[in-house]
């Protein structure tokens, strides 16, 4: 059953072919058996999962089930879950148990989905390779020498390894799309404000967005139906109706215009990756779409802009981790300053410290105008670029990353090279747009994903385009075990 998609499992549960308890137990057994190789979970909530599964079965028996009732899911370990440890991949939160539930996980709870556990991630969602977790690197199920991508690497890996039917992720600069791409699964970063951030431990508040990761677009649509919607507790969450994303999955693509930004296909893009993308676009033409070249002239500026704004926000979002009220506190502090310094020095990893320093610098008196203000101006230009491009096309397509997954350790000494690998994804966060990654084949055994970018709140069209592509191709069906 674990090879089946979330939607197929939902049908099996509805038909009574399997119970949620059986399904959940089979995943728990798989996790026990295999996750030692992948390290995709930080916490496995076995007992809780079985209790929830039992409840889900009862609810289904009572005729009160939704599509997700009884479906075993995994949650990125930055969604606060009441009574279950939430570490954010950091030593500083190694002992943190939130007294409340994030809106996203609450919604899944209310739908009676089952939580298998909390997935591994780059510390505080900072990273492109998932090598920055206090709990060790996650390994790519397609090749355990390779990184799974970051920062939702644990979520991507556990879905790819069929250790969960679906998983939640968050995407600040590509952290859903890029690991989905590297792990050969489907992932969607919704429009900023589409999904509540309440209870999500913040990295960069103006960029963070939660989204679904699963085998198929249809599965993502089912998950987004539950995740999306207004939340009084998040002022940046938009009060807009949530459409049924499954209702438009089969709409025709006839007449759809695909924009290919010329800047996405310039130097730096691996030739084999480019070929997979072009092949996928050709497939879309067969489905009735027309293709047009568009331009995002300020694409290159998105990296410096992002790497000022995100660390600036992070530097203050992370101030609360000071050893005073929760999380790690150093032993025997000599005084207040000593407590702050040592608690934070011991609690945070290298990449987090690097970004706190960059962000603190960028916001300092005398540098604010040169860095932060400038970065915000560039952000506006990038958004305008997208708006202009969307006057000529309905959907933008391109790669998620310049190369397939690289090897663990390959770039860890070169943060700048690591940052450059985000060039295709983070401009989408700066513009607040929805973006998606869909499996589009592989290069030397490592998966490649096609990135699709939509207009604000046009998730329905992205899922529709992805679903039609998946009806016509088999890329999404490949798994590390069938390849």
């Amino acid at each position, binding site marked *: 059953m674990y090879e089946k998609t979330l939607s197929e499992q939902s049908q099996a549960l509805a038909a009574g072919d399997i119970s949620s308890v059986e399904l959940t137990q089979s995943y728990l057994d798989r996790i026990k058996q295999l996750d030692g190789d992948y390290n995709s979970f930080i916490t496995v909530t076995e007992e809780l999962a079985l209790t929830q599964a039992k409840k889900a079965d009862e609810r289904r028996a009572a005729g009160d089930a939704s599509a997700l009732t009884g479906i075993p899911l995994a949650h990125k370990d930055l969604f606060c879950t009441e009574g279950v440890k939430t570490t954010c991949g950091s030593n500083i939160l190694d002992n943190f148990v939130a007294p409340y539930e994030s809106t996203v996980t609450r919604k899944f709870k209310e739908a009676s989905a089952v939580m298998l556990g909390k997935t591994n991630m780059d510390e505080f969602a900072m990273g492109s390779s998932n090598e920055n977790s206090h709990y060790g690197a996650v390994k790519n199920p397609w090749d355990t020498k390779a990184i799974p991508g970051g920062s939702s690497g644990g979520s991507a890996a556990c879905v790819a390894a069929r250790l969960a039917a679906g998983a939640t992720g968050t995407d600040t600069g590509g952290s859903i799309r890029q690991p989905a791409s590297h792990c050969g699964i489907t992932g969607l970063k919704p429009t900023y404000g589409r999904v509540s*951030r309440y209870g999500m431990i913040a990295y960069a508040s103006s960029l963070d967005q939660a989204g679904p990761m699963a085998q198929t677009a249809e599965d993502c649509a089912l998950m987004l139906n539950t995740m999306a919607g207004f939340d009084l507790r998040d*002022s*940046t969450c938009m009060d807009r109706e949530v459409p049924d994303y499954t209702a438009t999955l089969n709409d025709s693509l006839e007449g759809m215009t695909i924009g290919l930004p010329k800047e996405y296909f310039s130097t730096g893009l691996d030739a084999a990756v480019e070929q997979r993308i072009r092949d996928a676009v050709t497939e879309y033409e067969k489905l009735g779409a027309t293709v047009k070249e568009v331009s995002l002239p300020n694409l290159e500026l998105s990296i410096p802009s992002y790497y000022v704004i995100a660390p600036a926000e992070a530097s203050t979002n992370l*101030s609360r981790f000071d050893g005073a009220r929760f999380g790690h506190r150093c032993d025997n502090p000599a005084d207040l300053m000593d407590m702050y310094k040592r608690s934070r020095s011991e609690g945070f990893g290298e990449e987090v410290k690097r970004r706190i320093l960059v962000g603190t610098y960028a*916001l300092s008196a005398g540098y604010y105008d040169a860095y932060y203000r400038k970065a915000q101006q560039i952000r506006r230009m990038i958004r305008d670029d997208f708006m202009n491009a969307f006057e000529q096309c309905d959907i933008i397509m391109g790669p998620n990353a310049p190369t397939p997954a690289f090897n663990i350790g390959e770039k860890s000494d070169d943060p700048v090279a690591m940052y450059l690998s985000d060039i295709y994804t983070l401009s989408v966060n700066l513009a607040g747009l929805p973006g998606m990654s869909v499996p589009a084949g592989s290069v030397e055994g490592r998966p490649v994903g096609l990135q699709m970018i939509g207009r604000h709140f046009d998730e329905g069209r992205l899922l529709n385009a992805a679903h039609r592509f998946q009806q016509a191709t088999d890329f999404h069906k490949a798994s590390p075990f069938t390849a």
Partner: protein
Amino acid sequence: MQWETVIGLEIHVQLATKTKIFSGASTAFGAEPNTQACAVDLGLPGVLPVVNEEAINMAIKFGLGIDAEINRVNVFERKNYFYPDLPKGYQTTQLDKPIVGAGHVDITLNDGSTKSIRIHHAHLEEDAGKSLHEDYHGMSGIDLNRAGTPLIEIVTEPDLRNAEEAVAFAKKLHSIVTTLGICDGNMSQGSMRFDVNVSVRPTGQEEFGTRTETKNLNSFKFMEAAILKEVERQIDVLEDGGKIVQETRLYNGDTGEARSMRSKEEANDYRYFPCPDLLPVVIEDSRLEKLRADMPEMPDAKKARFISEFGLSDVDADILSGDQPTADFFEAAAKGSDAKLASNWVLGEVSRSLNANEITIADSPVTAEMLAGLIVRIKDNTISGNIAKKVFEALWNGEGKDADEVIEKKGLKQVTDTAAIEAMIDEVLTANARQVENYRAAPVEKRGKMIGFFVGQAMKASRGKANPGMVNQILKKKLDS
């Protein structure tokens, strides 16, 4: 050398909202530590702020109350620093785009003249928690009940020239915020806290001297004392050839001592930037109009009305309009009685008794209605002004539900019966035959003074109940005949 003082104030005013500025936790004062702090106030990971619309309304009302521009798009920013009572590691406040722009507050000086003090701006922000340094054996306790309490910080231009003006301004501001009902005005509980920026310069000099800031003064008395002390200190330093260092100072109201807290060099870099968790606050026309329509009568307008409607003097009207509870008490007492008398009583007996018992007018045992009833009995000659004081005292001590009951119970009704008064006067004249002789022998121009003796004797004989006017009249007639 002659010195001139320059003072600017920053005032933190706690808004009287039921819940905090970014969370649903209660703002009530005096609860057990950390019982009124929810996950948002504690800055737990993942929580997000949501603006309390009532706090926005109150800030707007303040702006309207001081004739200020309301910034229709205002922005919350993060002010970053580490301190144990600051749970998030930043304070959410407003810097570049505060909700209230430039305005003014007019004060009345002791010589009766008025002066307009410019307000630079007022912004919304959240309060921090409190560090408790006692009872923790070398450690500190943190109480976050106050964290997230909504404040407006009001910043004046350096328009004040001495402690007296500063106090007059502070009192006027107190009157404005209590009239608006946006602050309970309870200074001892920290509802209003003053930071004073003080500098001195040789009289006639254009540019300002170096200033110091004394923080967190929570009474008019302490503020005045702190200013006087700092002015004296600065003049001493300058006259000794020294220089004033820009610094933050602390004043201890209990000991009257002041000391330096930190110099400018040690000041933080707060790394302000717009809070990405909060969207800009956009104030629509309709909201502004609705709040404008709901504005209460402001102290200046009230004062003008007290003068024109009740014929009060400028000074009396100024005091009575100065704070909302006193103004309301006066108006209720004046209603159906006599405004002049009500004014005299509120400023006299009522305020004396309140001061002696250290209570506020809201807790006065003699209500405005009781006072009005008392005044009516003075007006209709049932009792004299002197007897009225006895009645007031009885009412204050709870010896009756209203003036009539006290008058009745104690038999204080004024004697206005001519025959009875005549009989009493006859007795007095008989008992003081020698004085009567002296009176009649005295030249007419001296008699006016001498009659006071007989009035006193007659009033004494009546135990104060005789109508003094009638006593005077009858005495004159009998003595002069």
